[in-house]
């Protein structure tokens, strides 16, 4: 009897082991827990990595490694002459994932697209408030409720979206994670069972990986979707091991407990590059960190003063101390990886002497000012405190006394919007969709004063250029307009542009096929392991 059990156990062990050997499991040490699994409800990249890029697809997708769009669930699209009607031809024969919790009976069709948009846009849709506090924040942030007039099904494989105004960045927006397409059939079943909450806990889509299980704050498991329209993935299982501490992530990567990790400590990068078991790829991120003066308050209402202060900041020192070099000093308000980046614009050179003279010439003496530093670490500025301290000592050298102020994060975001705010605010931005409009108009347009425009800077010349670019669909034409806008920006200097941080991704040597996204996404379709 005893012998028999041992044998059975051995047999079991053998099958488990052989099973493990043939199944390829890719482990990603992610930086945090997803807030939920319905991408429409959230705005955080961590959530999109876990939900949107694994389980779901969108009508259009960003081509890997670029900010250009390519066909996704829509095979093609046409735009009407007035630029208001977008007609999408849907991909036929796309299957939804079959999982333990749901078996689809039909393929993807136009009903799913209409449903996916309507639930976010129409208050009377039963799914509009299916969880407490559902707010569809990103759709609102990208202006969808105002821009989209209607989403209609033409036939099973054709959808027409009508806009209220010309909006060149619309196509890029459709490729964003929040616009993921969900299954109406699955939603209907959940609604009938009275389990609508499950939509946010057990996602089901058309994407490359099917959701298996989530253990709160610990592990998310997916398996490759065998019916994926783009073909089955080379890896069989995908695991997110949630590891919030960067040094712990590094340890796990070194120990082979995971294959790839995001956001390493800047201080560890050199050692990672030296490790023969690892490889490191890096790319400039689609972001900018800036110090926004309040251009409505004296003496910061004078461009000369702002210019002079900009010359006092040693950006290289900030990049070195905060990022250990893993960032580049910023010249323009948009990052160099973005189309229309104007290389001809020259940065204000670090020159304390010139700065001092400039301030004197402008009649500014014994200036005391506040510099706001964020209380949290952001991808574009890992340690705002440290950066503010550096700026403080830089400004001291040109006779400007700085007081560093900080608030709790939500308060910080809110108070910094005030038009009569006292002091210069450090903040930044990570691009949503790779469109320059998403930086230039969103952060510096006249409409954004009192909101995202923390410099409270309304410059007619600049505003006209970006508004015109938004309504133009020809890329070459838009590029020219944005290039001009950057010249105007630099001349008037509402910000001290600080840095664009690099996105550094360390991984095991055996990882192949991972393509870094300029949008900062971590997507694992097409990845393989040879280790």
């Amino acid at each position, binding site marked *: 009897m005893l012998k028999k059990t041992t044998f059975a156990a051995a047999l079991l062990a053998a099958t488990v082991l052989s099973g493990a050997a043939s199944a390829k499991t890719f482990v990603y040490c992610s930086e945090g827990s997803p807030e939920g699994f319905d991408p429409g409800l959230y705005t955080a990249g961590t959530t999109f990595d876990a939900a949107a890029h694994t389980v779901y697809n969108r009508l259009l997708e960003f081509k890997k490694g670029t900010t250009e769009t390519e066909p996704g669930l829509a095979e093609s699209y046409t735009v009407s002459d007035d630029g208001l009607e977008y007609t999408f031809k849907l991909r036929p024969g796309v299957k939804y994932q079959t999982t333990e919790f749901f078996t689809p009976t039909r393929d993807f069709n136009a009903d799913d697209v209409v449903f996916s948009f309507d639930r976010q846009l129409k208050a009377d849709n039963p799914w509009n408030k299916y969880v407490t506090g559902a707010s569809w924040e990103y759709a609102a942030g990208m202006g969808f409720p105002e821009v989209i007039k209607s989403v209609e099904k033409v036939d099973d494989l054709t959808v027409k979206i009508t806009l209220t105004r010309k909006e060149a960045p619309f196509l890029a927006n459709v490729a964003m994670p929040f616009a993921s397409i969900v299954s109406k059939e699955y939603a209907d079943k959940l609604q009938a069972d009275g389990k609508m909450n499950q939509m946010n806990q057990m996602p089901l889509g058309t994407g490359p990986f099917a959701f298996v299980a989530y253990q709160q704050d610990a592990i998310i498991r997916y398996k490759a979707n065998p019916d994926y329209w783009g073909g089955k993935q080379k890896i069989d299982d995908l695991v997110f091991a949630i590891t919030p501490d960067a*040094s712990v992530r590094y340890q796990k990567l070194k120990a082979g407990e995971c294959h790839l990790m995001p956001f390493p400590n800047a201080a560890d990068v050199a050692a990672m590059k030296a490790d023969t078991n690892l490889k490191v790829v890096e790319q400039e991120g689609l972001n900018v960190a800036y110090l926004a003066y309040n251009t409505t308050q004296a003496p910061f209402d004078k461009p000369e003063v702002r210019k002079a202060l900009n010359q006092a900041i040693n950006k290289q020192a900030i990049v070195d101390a905060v990022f250990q070099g893993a960032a580049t000093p910023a010249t323009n308000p948009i990052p160099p990886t973005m189309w229309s980046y104007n290389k001809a614009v020259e940065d204000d050179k670090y020159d304390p002497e010139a700065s001092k003279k400039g301030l004197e010439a402008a009649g500014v003496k014994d200036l005391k000012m506040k510099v706001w530093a964020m209380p949290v670490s952001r991808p574009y500025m890992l340690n705002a405190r*440290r950066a503010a301290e550096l700026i403080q000592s830089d400004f001291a050298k040109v006779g400007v006394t700085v007081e560093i102020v900080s608030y709790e994060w939500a308060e910080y975001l809110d108070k910094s919007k005030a038009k009569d705010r006292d002091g210069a605010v450090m903040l930044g931005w990570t691009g949503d969709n790779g469109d320059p409009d998403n930086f230039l108009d969103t952060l510096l347009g006249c409409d954004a004063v009192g909101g995202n425009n923390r410099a409270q800077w309304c410059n007619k010349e600049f505003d006209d250029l970006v508004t015109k670019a938004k309504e133009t669909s020809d890329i070459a034409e838009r590029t020219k307009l944005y290039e001009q806008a950057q010249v105007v920006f630099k001349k008037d200097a509402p910000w001290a542009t600080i840095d664009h941080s690099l996105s550094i991704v360390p991984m095991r040597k055996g990882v192949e096929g991972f393509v870094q996204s300029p949008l900062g996404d971590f997507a694992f379709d097409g990845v393989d392991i040879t280790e």
Partner: protein
Amino acid sequence: MSQAAATSAVSTDPSRRARLAEFWYYFSENRGAVIGLVFFIFLVLLAIFAPLIAPHDPTQQYRDAVLVPPVWQEGGRADFLLGTDAVGRDMLSRLVYGTQFSLFVGVIVTALSLVVGVVFGVIAGYFRGWVDTAIMRVMDIILAFPSLLLALVLVAILGPGLVNAMIAISLVYQPHFVRLARAAVMSEKTRDYVVAAKVAGAGHTRLMFKTILPNCMAPLIVQATLSFSSAILDAAALGFLGMGAQPPTPEWGTMLAEAREFIQSKWWVVTLPGVAILITVLAINLMGDGLRDALDPKLKRS
């Protein structure tokens, strides 16, 4: 602090002098306690004379000397004995100034929780009845939360910072003092000397704080030394969680939190603040053990 209280009493009462001598006899018998005391005095001197001792300004950034290792390691520099941190500030100077903050936290938290706790405890124990019930229920409520969690939420309400951290920590330490003071007062209240004083016409306040309290000090002093060391640990823990002293304050817990990213690469920025916390707390606890042995007759011979 207990020393000072005892010394001031010496001149007035000859019997106290004998008790002090006895106290010192037992205290000095404990070798660990003496070592702790010596080290503690050293820390106090360090804190007071920090501006003279520290080779650099603790917030001065040497841009040419970022993350320099300690002097005995390759690449170390003689002007930065224990190396520098991520923005080129001298570690030794920051550690020396850090003593000021840690001792300050210990003193303030202990004083605050001792004074407030004793007042409430004595009142509760003296009056009993509904006053007692009300006070003790509030203490029960405080004790129902894990102290660090309660302190964390309190600091989140008050706003992160060293002063608010101290307020939060003293609040969560209250119940221990209240309970001790209450129990001591209740057991002393029926003693002859108290009854005598009452008959002689002493008022409530006098009875509570002049007659009874001085005779209940021993357990409170022991608790106070314990609070002193825990306050330093808890303030550092809050600093570590980003809710205590804010940078660039050279508080040890905050320094540790800021240095966390260097754990794999630059050992000195991570290790040294922790060592500083450990030995400071250890010295105070050694002293506390000696105090307890000397003050608590029951344990005197153990």
